[in-house]
Structure formats: C-alpha cells, structure tokens
C-alpha cells in the first residue's frame, strides 16, 4: 500500500467498479424500509453515506452485497450483481458488523477460512493483520478482543481480497482517536488508488473530513447525492461573520436591509439572509469601520440536520413529488 504500489495498481485496475443502486425497494412485513432508492457511487473518491437512525443505511449496504434480498430493484458493482461475482471478496470488501467473528476462533483463523474460499494466500492473511495492527494478537481468541480490535479485525476481513470496492458500515465505531485518524488516512489513500469507497458514519465531522461525495437518505429515500461541498452550500444556514467597532450601528443597518443579526460571545455579528458584499456596501456607505467580513459555511452537521428534517417534512429535494406529498410529517427517526 505504498505510494509506488498505489500508482501501479491504479494503472492495472479497471476504472469501472461503480456501485449502482437502481430502484431498490425493501419491505419488511408492511414496513417499507427502502423506498425506490437509486444512486451511484463513483470510484476514486470516498463517498459518505448519511441518514438519520433507521433511514436504511445498513439495510441498503446489506442489499448491495446480497445478504438481504431486495423486494424489487437491485444493485450492481461494475455492472455485475454481487451474487454473480465468482470470488466476491476479491472485488468487494464489506465491513457490515464487526462483531461477526466466533469468540473461540483466533483472528488469523477467522481470516484464513475466508481467504481459503477465495483462493487468497496465508501470506495475505498475515499482511492484512499487519496492516490493521493486529499481528501481535493474531493467534489469540477473538473473544478476548476489545470493541476497537474487533473493528480492526472486521476491517482486515474487508481488505483481505485487496478489493476495488469497499463498503464500510460505521467503521470508526469503537475506535480511539488514533484509530479514527488511521481509518481516515487509509480510506483516503485507498480512494486515491482509484477504488470505490462507500462509508457510513453518524460522525458528521468525520464525514466532512473524509468524504468528497455524499449520498444522503431519509426513510429509505434519497435526499441528496452530490459533493459534500454542494451539500453544505445548499444549507440556508450560511452566514457572514462581521467584526466592527461600530457593531450596534452596523447591526441596525443590516436589520433594516432585511438581514438577520445574531451576536456571538466575542461580540462579533453573525449575519444571515444577506451576503458579505451587501454588508460591505452598507458599511461603506455609512462610513463604518470593518475589521472582519467572512462568509461562513454551515457545518455538515447543520446542513444534514436541516436537509434530513426538511425531507421528512416536505419531501425535500427529491424530484419524486407525488410520493413526497404523501410523506408523513413526523421526524425521520425510526427506532
């Protein structure tokens, strides 16, 4: 996974490992969990998969890799259904629930039996254990592992076949800050090698730091599929930070012009609804001194809260208007 290798594998690998989800539906009993969901995950970048609890993220991931059977619709990876991949672990690595190891089996044996189904060598098993930092405990029972070590073992299993596609459900769960940094670096590196990476997390700051693209779902429906920057840009929570020795006078001017002014703890003004140029012009006309005039982006968290909430209430940015008109008005959370 050194830089040299990365460049070579980028040349050797096909760029076509796109995850394509088309009209995916999953109904449990009378409960519609995934509701005509379509999106594409492109190679070469990290794609974050976001949604409130119960939005259907894990279910979608399980449907992509065929652990659950879709009610209708489906997903392909590089144009092929997961079930039709002859040696799937060599194409797709998935971390779906890290606890999926027998407590009595060693980490090495757990990976070995997976490797044997795919014609992967013992050497590669040792290699991924080294990569995730479990070499020293490779022959200890997995039952003695901490949550973080279990997560690392799950990640080792996902990386076993050196796959072009990684599907990781909450990979940083249970990891310490070091571990979180390490995963962040790893997935960005793997994406830079041209791999396709879909990664879900409830840690917004983590996603903001890692994901170039986002797929956001709520109640099993698509809310947004765009770049992280676009998603944040879309938020109405954008504001302008203004610092001025004449802040009270300026604040009155801005309010008169239709801006909405808050004062933060330092006495700086946080202005919504009108942009930085407009504020600058107001100050200049009135001859007021400005020390700072900075457009502020909403945080991913703000944008997420706003847009997932909007989606469940008004149907959001989904083109599918008729369906959304029927959407109920309660919050998006499902237990």
């Amino acid at each position, binding site marked *: 996974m050194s830089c040299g290798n990365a460049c070579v594998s980028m040349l*050797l690998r096909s760029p076509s490992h796109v995850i394509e989800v088309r009209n995916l539906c999953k109904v449990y009993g009378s409960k519609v969990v995934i509701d005509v969901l379509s999106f594409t995950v492109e190679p070469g970048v990290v794609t974050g998969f976001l949604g409130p609890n119960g939005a259907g993220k894990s279910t979608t991931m399980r449907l992509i890799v*065929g652990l659950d059977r879709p009610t209708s619709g489906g997903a392909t990876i590089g144009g*092929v259904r997961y*079930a039709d991949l002859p040696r799937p672990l060599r194409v797709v690595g998935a971390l779906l629930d890290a606890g999926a190891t027998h407590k009595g089996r060693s980490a090495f*044996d757990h990976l*070995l039996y997976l490797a*044997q189904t795919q014609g992967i060598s013992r050497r590669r098993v040792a290699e991924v254990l080294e990569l995730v930092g479990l070499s020293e405990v490779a022959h200890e029972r997995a039952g003695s592992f901490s949550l973080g070590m279990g997560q690392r073992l799950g990640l080792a299993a996902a990386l076993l076949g050196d796959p072009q596609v990684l599907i990781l459900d909450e990979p940083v769960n249970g990891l310490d800050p070091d571990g979180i940094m390490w995963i962040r670096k790893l997935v960005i590196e793997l994406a830079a090698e041209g791999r396709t990476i879909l990664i879900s997390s409830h840690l917004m700051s983590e996603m903001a730091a890692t994901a170039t693209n986002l797929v956001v779902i709520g109640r099993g429906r698509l809310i947004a599929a765009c770049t992280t920057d676009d998603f944040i840009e879309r938020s109405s929570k954008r504001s302008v930070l203004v610092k001025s020795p004449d802040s009270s006078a300026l604040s009155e001017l801005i309010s008169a012009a239709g801006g909405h002014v808050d004062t933060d703890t330092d006495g700086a003004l946080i202005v919504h609804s009108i942009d930085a140029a407009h504020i600058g012009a107001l100050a200049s006309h009135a001859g007021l001194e400005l020390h700072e005039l900075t457009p502020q982006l909403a945080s991913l968290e703000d944008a997420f809260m706003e847009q997932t909430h909007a989606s469940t209430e008004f149907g959001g940015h989904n083109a599918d208007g008729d369906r959304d008109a029927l959407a109920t008005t309660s919050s998006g959370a499902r237990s």
Partner: protein
Amino acid sequence: MTVTVDLLTQPDQPTAGARLDIAGLLRSEWTKIRSLRSSVTALVLLVVVTIGFTALFVGLTVGQWDQLDRIQELTYRLDPTRLILGAGFQLSQLAVCVLGVLVIANEYSSGTIRSNLLAVPHRTPMLLAKSAVFAVVVFVVSEVAAFGAFAVGAPILHSKVAVGIGDPGVLGALLGAGLYGAVLGVFSIAIGAIVRHTAGGIAGIIAFVLVLAPLTQLIPGSIGDHVYAYLPTSAGQLMVNARQGPKDLLTPWQGFGVMCLWTVALMLLANALLRRGDA
C-alpha cells in the same frame, strides 16, 4: 498502452458465471472445524467416552451374565457386535448430533454466517461444503471410536461369547457405525440450519433421536412398529448391527437408505430457507 492495460485488467474484472473454488470451500470449512477448540475437544471426547463406556458396559454385562434372561442372552449370542457397539454408540451419536447442530447454528449466533455468505453469496455451496467436511470428519472419528470400542469390548466379552472382526457382518457393522455417524451429522446440520438457533436446534435433534423413537413404540400394534422402523435414527442404526434382528422390519441398507432420504429432505428444506431468506 491502453491495450496492455485492458489485457492486464481482464483477470480482475468481475465476470459472471466463473467456476467456484470447491477445494477452497472444503479447506475453509475444515479450517472452521479445526480452529475451534470446543469442536476438537468434543470429537476427542467422543472417542474416549465411546471406548470407555463400551468397556464399562460390556464388563458389567459379562459380570451379570448369569442374571440375563434367556431372550437377552440369545440376542447377545446371536449378535455380540450389537452389544459391544451399542453402549458407547448411544452416547457418541448424541455428541454427533450436538456438534452437527453447533457447526451451523454457531454461525448464526456468532454472526459469522454473514462473513460466510459474503464470501459465498450463492449460499448452497457453503451448506454442501460444510456438510461434506463434517460428514468426513464424523466418519473418521466414528470409525476410530467403533474400531477402538470393538478392540476393547471383544476381549472382555470373550469369556462368554467369542467374536472376531472376521465374523460375518462384523466388519460391515463397524463400517456402518461411521456411515451412520456421518449421515446423522449431516441430518443435524440440516436441523441446525432450519432452526438457526443453538439451543433450539439441539432440543430439536434430541427430540428426534431420544424422544420420538421411544414414543412411537407406545403406539399399539404394527402401526407403531412401522412408524418406528422408518424414523431416521432407528432406521439408520440398523447399519450398526452385524445381522438383521428378528424384530427389524428393514435390512441395514434399507434402513440406511431411509435415513438418507430423511436427511436429503431436510437438507432441501434447509437450503430453500437459506437461499430465500435474509441472512
């Protein structure tokens, strides 16, 4: 350059319909069995306990020989192999049942079934490979136990009834013990795969082996005898007898066939459930 790259990428392309690595699957299932201390311990115990109980039971029978009633004594004289293998065998078959259920139900309780199905998304090959490997393991272990039991039991019984491995039917019965164990193991895997729950699966198989058979014998008349004869374990156990007893409705091989049919039927059900459902 593009052409070269295209050629090089070919083996990496996800191609549909390529052949499954059956040898790899079998190796993988073997790794799973041997890497769990509990299953290895259980298999070793199976051999030790079978031989131990054979010695104990045959020894006790020889000690109490004068108190046997005529019919019992005659049965033993007619088929001493049944006496020798019978004792430890009842215990070892329980061990096989429990292990068989565990082999698959453990995967559900620990969640490893999901790792597995990610590796073998077609599912059926996994179930078949697991059954095949477990059947072979149980066959070998059961043979070791059966030959060991015979080697220990025959000399103890020698003072009352002389029996040698070359006597008619004896070798067949010894081999039958392994075959019976192997099929019983697969039968248990099928139950475990259907129930998907360790305790529930074990309860189910015990009900089949220990409860159902004696229960059917309470049914009066020949109906009870027939139902009993066609139960999987009572039919299969005929394989372990050196000769067909006067009360047996089926020959050993017929009995074995009946047990295999039960196993196939349950396996088909297990496979249908495995393929249809969410894991």
